[in-house]
């Protein structure tokens, strides 16, 4: 649920209940005031009647008070508490009964007591209450509509900077070298939020850059000692007085040094791709490159009697030759290295897809971690970075790479 909807819900409930309670109080208050007013009027009328009786020594006639209906009833009671009450009122002109208010009290004339009842119409006050009620209702509806519109549009407008910030955070790319900048706003809270987000992104980016520099520097620093090891070994084997066992040891050191060196190069390459440092994109003929690689790897494939078949459509891509070379190298060497004796390798190139299918171990690989660093099979001789590099190259060019397994083929698909 959107913020404005939440806000709307809350404000509608509160508004309606407050208005309802208000209207009730209002209604009773007005009713009370109107009743007091009527009572005062009735008292006045009664006093007038009393005055008249005192002055004239007789009961007044109906005509003198034509708006009111006054009745006098002889009584033997000597005292009666003055009482106000609602009573029907007969409109003499329209001949119909409507709501009225009455006073009943005692008047004494020449020793005789009369119960006097004066009734007046309440039509005027009822009308007033109705009008006030209608206006209140109209106000209530108007207020609700205005609140709704306000919440919907003004609130949305007010929160605009928040949504801008949210979108900016969504598209935040840690490896993007451009500084992360958010628009400033009139609202202090949003400015503060933006400032915090900017500071945080800056810190994250700095950490990331430091980490990358560390990887790069560490890898570079390792290269010179590696070069020393290799050079020493190259010199050592010139000594032909060494025993075969010693040569065997040297061979192992060669292998280890070679592996370390490949690992290093892979790490450096990853840093380079992630830093977007490879920017020598050119128009490449992918099918031509694949054909070339197929020839290059034919020896390796033959050593396992792997049947390589390629069905290639013409495809132009714009990418770095260096990276595409590495991409194909990794795909080919994986597909051959993890293949079975007498296995198969099928390469299919269409306008929007490049598919490598190969036979191999008869169980699917974990597609979730396959492309992560240092994920490799137990028997793998590789660095564990090959597929990570492939994935990173694909990411760089906004291609999608996926893995699937359908007996007996392991399939890697790059969608352009």
């Amino acid at each position, binding site marked *: 649920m959107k913020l404005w909807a939440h806000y709307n819900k809350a404000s509608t409930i509160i508004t309606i209940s407050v208005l309802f309670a208000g209207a009730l109080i209002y209604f009773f208050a007005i009713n009370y005031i109107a009743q007091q007013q009527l009572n005062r009027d009735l008292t006045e009328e009664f006093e007038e009647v009393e005055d008249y009786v005192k002055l004239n020594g007789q009961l007044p006639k109906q005509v003198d008070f034509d708006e009111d209906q006054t009745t006098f009833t002889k009584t033997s009671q000597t005292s009666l508490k003055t009482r106000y009450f609602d009573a029907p009122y007969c409109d003499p002109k329209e001949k119909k009964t409507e709501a009225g208010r009455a006073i009943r009290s005692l008047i004494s004339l020449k020793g005789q007591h009369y119960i006097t009842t004066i009734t007046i119409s309440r039509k005027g006050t009822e009308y007033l209450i109705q009008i006030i009620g209608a206006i209140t209702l109209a106000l209530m509806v108007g207020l609700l509509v205005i609140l709704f519109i306000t919440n919907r549009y003004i609130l949305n407008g007010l929160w605009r900077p928040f949504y801008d910030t949210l979108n900016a955070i969504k598209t935040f790319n840690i490896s993007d070298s451009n500084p992360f900048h958010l628009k400033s706003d009139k609202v202090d809270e949003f400015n503060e939020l933006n400032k915090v987000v900017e500071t945080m992104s800056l810190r994250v980016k700095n950490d990331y850059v430091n980490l990358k520099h560390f990887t790069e520097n560490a890898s570079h620093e390792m290269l010179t000692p590696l070069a020393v090891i290799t050079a020493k070994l190259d010199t050592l084997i010139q000594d032909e007085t060494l025993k075969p066992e010693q040569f065997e040891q040297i*061979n192992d050191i060669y292998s280890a040094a070679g592996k370390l060196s490949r690992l290093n190069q892979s790490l450096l390459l990853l840093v380079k791709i992630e830093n977007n440092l490879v920017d020598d994109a050119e128009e490449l003929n992918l099918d031509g490159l694949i054909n070339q690689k197929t020839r290059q790897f034919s020896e390796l494939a033959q050593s396992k009697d792997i049947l390589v078949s390629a069905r290639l459509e013409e495809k132009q891509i714009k990418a770095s030759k260096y990276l595409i070379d590495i991409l194909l190298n990794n795909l080919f060497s994986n597909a051959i290295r993890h293949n079975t004796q007498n296995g198969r390798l099928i390469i299919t190139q269409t306008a929007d897809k490049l598919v490598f299918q190969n036979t191999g171990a008869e169980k699917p690989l974990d597609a979730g971690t396959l492309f992560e660093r240092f994920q490799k099979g137990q028997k793998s001789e590789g660095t564990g970075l090959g597929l990570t590099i492939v994935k990173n190259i694909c990411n760089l060019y906004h291609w999608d790479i996926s893995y699937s397994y359908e007996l007996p083929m392991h399939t890697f698909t790059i969608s352009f």
Partner: protein
Amino acid sequence: MKLLIIEDEQALRDNITNYFNEDGNICESCSCLAVAITKLSNYDYDCVLLDIGLPDGDGFAILEYLKTQMKNEAVLIISARNSLDNKLKGLNIGADDYLTKPFHLAELKARVVAIYRRKAFNSNNKLVFNEIVINLLGRTVDVNQTPVILTRKEYDMLLYFIANKGKVISKNAIAEHLWGDEMDMHNNFDFIYTHIKNLRKKLLDAKCNDYLSSIYGIGYKFKAE
């Protein structure tokens, strides 16, 4: 061949010097920019091996110095930096080749010899080793005036062996030379064996001396005599 090795890592410098010295070359070495420039201003060299990261500055300064002084030394850059920019930058301002650390001494030697050949014998495209005559332009090989047809890998290997004659070359070095480190052969050296067997057979068939010998499973040696 007269060489100047500019490399600040002493262990590496010594090994390179030793490796090149045994072949009748004259090797001088230094570890910093200032000494290198003094040496270059006083003497002429055939080839300069240049490390880019030096303690007192960037090795590119040497390239600029050679360019402004109109000196004709061939330059091979040895660098731990293998970024593409550096590579292009180096080759654009006058380096002849580029080798990334770590490298095999045999590879370094082969590269230096190749550069030297390009620079020194512009007119003469023939490489003669006893009865073997290699036409570098046409990439053909004659043994005792009889043409020997070699595959590309066998030809590359022969050149590589002759450049490193008298040295034991490890299988790793040969594999890297023939397939490049990108191919990642994963210590599967059967391929090398096949290629060497074929090369040796072809040479022997042409009545060539048997120069190639296997050394204890670690590598091969091409006899110098």
